[in-house]
């Protein structure tokens, strides 16, 4: 399983705080995003924005490889002030 977390305004936008996803066929963050979009087509808009990703509490990229048990957190960049 992959543990997926959504933080801050992304959580609000998706109406979801966390979900578990089978790790079958998920090799990296990019393929996780594809799997999530297939499950929830309405996530598509959110993922097309600029979003940040952390794997096991460490900032990562969409190319980051994943293994079962990983925790993947998504959240928006904040640039205002």
């Amino acid at each position, binding site marked *: 399983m992959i543990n997926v977390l959504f933080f*801050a305004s992304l959580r*609000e936008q998706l109406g979801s705080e966390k979900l578990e996803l089978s790790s079958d066929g998920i090799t990296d963050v990019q393929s996780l995003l594809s799997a999530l979009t297939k499950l929830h087509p309405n996530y598509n808009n959110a993922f097309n924005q600029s979003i940040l990703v952390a794997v096991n*509490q*460490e*900032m990562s990229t969409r190319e980051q490889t994943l293994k079962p048990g990983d925790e993947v957190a998504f959240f*928006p*960049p904040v*640039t*205002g*002030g």
Partner: protein
Amino acid sequence: MLSTQEKLRYSRQIMLNKVGEQGQLKLRNATVLIVGMGGLGNPVALYLAAAGVGKLLIADGDEVDITNLQRQVLFSQQDVKLNKADTASEKLQLNNPDVDIEVIDEMLDEELADYYIPNVDLVIDCTDNIAARYLLNKACLQHKKPLILGAATGFDGQQMVIDPNNQESACYQCVFPSAENAPVNNCQTIGILGPILAVIGGVQATEALKILMGLPVKTNRLALYDGLNQQWQYFNVKKQTSCTACGHSK
């Protein structure tokens, strides 16, 4: 040496073990550049001036707008149309006449950054757009000055400290590498709840005082504040060797 008056005025921080008279002297001898005198710049400047930081450079080219007043607590209705840095300077000076305040009444561009940053002890990023943040990041890397990032929109905030004197410290572009799909999400476009700025600005000012007094601060960490859920999350950030701003390929 601190004067008797200074010892009294700052007594509530001097009595802290981690501050003391030595810490207060360090604050008095310090120069800080605050870039942006909007939602974040307001509380940052208020608390640094109150704490007795010797010299504050405050930079903003914008005028006070009626839509700022919901969150920019240094300003009131009669300040509308006046330059933000100018107006803030007057009020800060009234709060603490000891502090030397220099106004930079324009947006900090590369030239101004290169002019001012070499002479400051640290820079506080209170800007409201990613282009300004990239620029400050680059200038602070070049001049080896600590940079305290803060950002806020909606109910959310983010905070990070960059220390270019530490070889391992990640920079802003290590976290936000691409300007291509850079968000244009600022307080004008997606709004903000005012006190989120007090929280983030308060953290920035705390980190600034700690750095000026020689206390350790955390680098390589992006802190995320979710005000709707009232929860902070922390993420480690590694310096990216591929970073175009601070990495080998720069």
